[in-house]
């Protein structure tokens, strides 16, 4: 309604504090990627404490859509001024976000892009700030392919199969492999989980003795794959690449157990998102999508 057009929806009941409230809603606070994101946001808020207040929330497990919808409703109930959200699902959150927009809240989508068709159905335009997962995966895939030759056998460890990002990353890996003529002999899900990744990798190593490389949808699974390779006594014979650039993986990249990973700058993601939100609160101009950088991380780039 009208509230949505109001550029300064300062409905916060706490009149003593005129600063707008920004809610950052993430997929999980139990995952390093999102912890980095939250830390980036908190650092930004500390540096700009006079401009806004921040509430950070995440769901218990990365796939619980209902809990995230609940969070959105709670933030509406808390009368926040803006929501910066990394959606756990690209479709199911749209209706709840539509409610938020109706309540006059500025909504910014980060990390994982909402489904454009459904947004259109609700007549919503929610600005997106985020990296291109497909591009990142393709980039690391190509870097790997440059070390391999045509026809080499490779395997892909996928994240939770229902997650949008997991699919985008696998697609990027697959395209890079196809371009270089690599042979993808196995693609299994290890549910983003390190221990499961060891089990799955071990089994793949047995089944495909000629395997030369493993492309992992995140660094946790890359760590698991590295442990499995180590246990199978194939250390140095199998190349592993990951995604996310978590801190634990950096040692392994330095000692060349893992070849490369992709940094999508989680901290910047939140900061860009918050800046877009603040912009939306202070201007009447429509906010443009922003793309955050994806960088290839190798042992050279770490030094």
């Amino acid at each position, binding site marked *: 309604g009208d509230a949505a057009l109001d550029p300064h929806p300062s409905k916060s009941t706490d009149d003593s504090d005129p600063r707008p409230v920004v809610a950052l809603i993430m997929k999980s606070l139990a995952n390093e990627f999102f912890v980095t994101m939250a830390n980036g946001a908190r650092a930004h808020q500390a540096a700009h404490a006079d401009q806004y207040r921040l509430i950070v929330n995440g769901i218990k497990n990365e796939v619980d*859509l209902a809990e995230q*919808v609940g969070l959105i409703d709670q933030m509406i109930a808390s009368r926040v001024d803006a929501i910066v959200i990394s959606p756990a699902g690209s479709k199911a959150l749209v209706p709840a976000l539509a409610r938020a927009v109706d309540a006059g809240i500025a909504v910014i989508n980060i990390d994982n892009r909402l489904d454009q068709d459904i947004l259109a159905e609700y007549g919503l335009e929610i600005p997106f700030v985020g990296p291109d997962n497909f591009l990142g995966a393709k980039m690391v895939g190509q870097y790997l392919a440059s070390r391999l030759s045509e026809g080499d056998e490779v395997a892909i460890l996928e994240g939770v199969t229902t997650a949008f990002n997991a699919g985008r990353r696998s697609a990027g890996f697959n395209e890079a492999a196809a371009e270089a003529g690599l042979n993808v002999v196995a693609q299994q899900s290890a549910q983003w989980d390190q221990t499961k990744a060891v089990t799955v990798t071990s089994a793949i190593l047995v089944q495909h003795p000629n395997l030369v490389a493993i492309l992992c949808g995140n660094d946790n699974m890359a760590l698991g794959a590295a442990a499995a390779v180590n246990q199978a006594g194939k250390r140095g014979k199998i190349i592993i690449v990951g995604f996310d650039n978590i801190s634990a993986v950096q040692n392994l990249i330095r000692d060349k157990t893992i070849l490369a990973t992709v940094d999508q700058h989680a901290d910047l993601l939140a900061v860009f998102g918050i800046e877009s939100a603040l912009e939306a609160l202070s201007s009447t101009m429509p906010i443009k999508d922003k793309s955050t950088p994806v960088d290839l991380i190798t042992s050279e780039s770490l030094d």
Partner: protein
Amino acid sequence: MDRLRFLKQHLEENFIVASLILLILLFGTASDNFFSVITLTTILNQLPALTVITVGMTLVLIVGGIDLSVGSVMGFSATVVGVATVAWGLPLPFACIVGLMAGLMCGLTNGILVSYLALPSFIVTLGMLEMARGLAYITTNSQTVYIGGAIQKISLPLPIIGVSAALLVAVATVIVAHLALTRTVMGRFIIAIGTNEQAARMSGIDARPYRLCILAASGALAGLGGIFNAAYLGSADPNAGIGFELSAIAAAVIGGTSLMGGRGSILGAFAGVLIITILQNGLAQIGVSEPAKRLITGAVIIVAVLIDRWRGTHSAS
């Protein structure tokens, strides 16, 4: 005599109500906007799925079993509703019926294995937990199915009454189950079976059909929960309901249901659902960190039962 018993029972439920009020006051002071109509609506909107599933769980616990599959069955049924609406183009009421049937089928399978093959319900429903989740992935090809506006009406406030159809149905389920348990012959039989199956058998009660019915009902209620979940999200999420079984058990036990069977209260379980939902909401509104959330949730579960126990020994001695 009767008056006294009633009073005692009243007091017992009041202890849970006291925990509830305490919780609400705590959050009210910790968060500026906790006391507001919109907080209330938010909480009311989140209740239906957990409520109906907890009702089923409570009945299963009273009859001396456990149903670990409720979360997965809820997810499966939600995906069935989604696919029935979107892919098969069924009108909403029919799609909902198909979703209910999906839940009922899972429940019946549990029931047959537990009653007539005499397998432990823990294991059967653990197997079903895996299988129903697999079915949910297969149904949707592991993707969230967007359903759209129509189904959301179920969980949006109705014009005059101000609460959603889902909530009405959930509250009706609580009342019906409460009356069925406390006032009907079947209720007595269920309590008897859960307390002492051998003695019930000697009294001419065959436990099997009752176990079967209760587990089937729990499946159907999980199916209903799936419909509510789909309505809440406006889409069918194949991952819906992961970990729901533990929330439902926690709610039931906080509400005074025994895991040993034979003892339990539907109204108490509903109070348990309120405690858990308010807790989640309040913590999110304060915006505490994930580790702190875990610590607080764990502590509240234990303290709620501790209060319950303290009340128990106190009124007994």
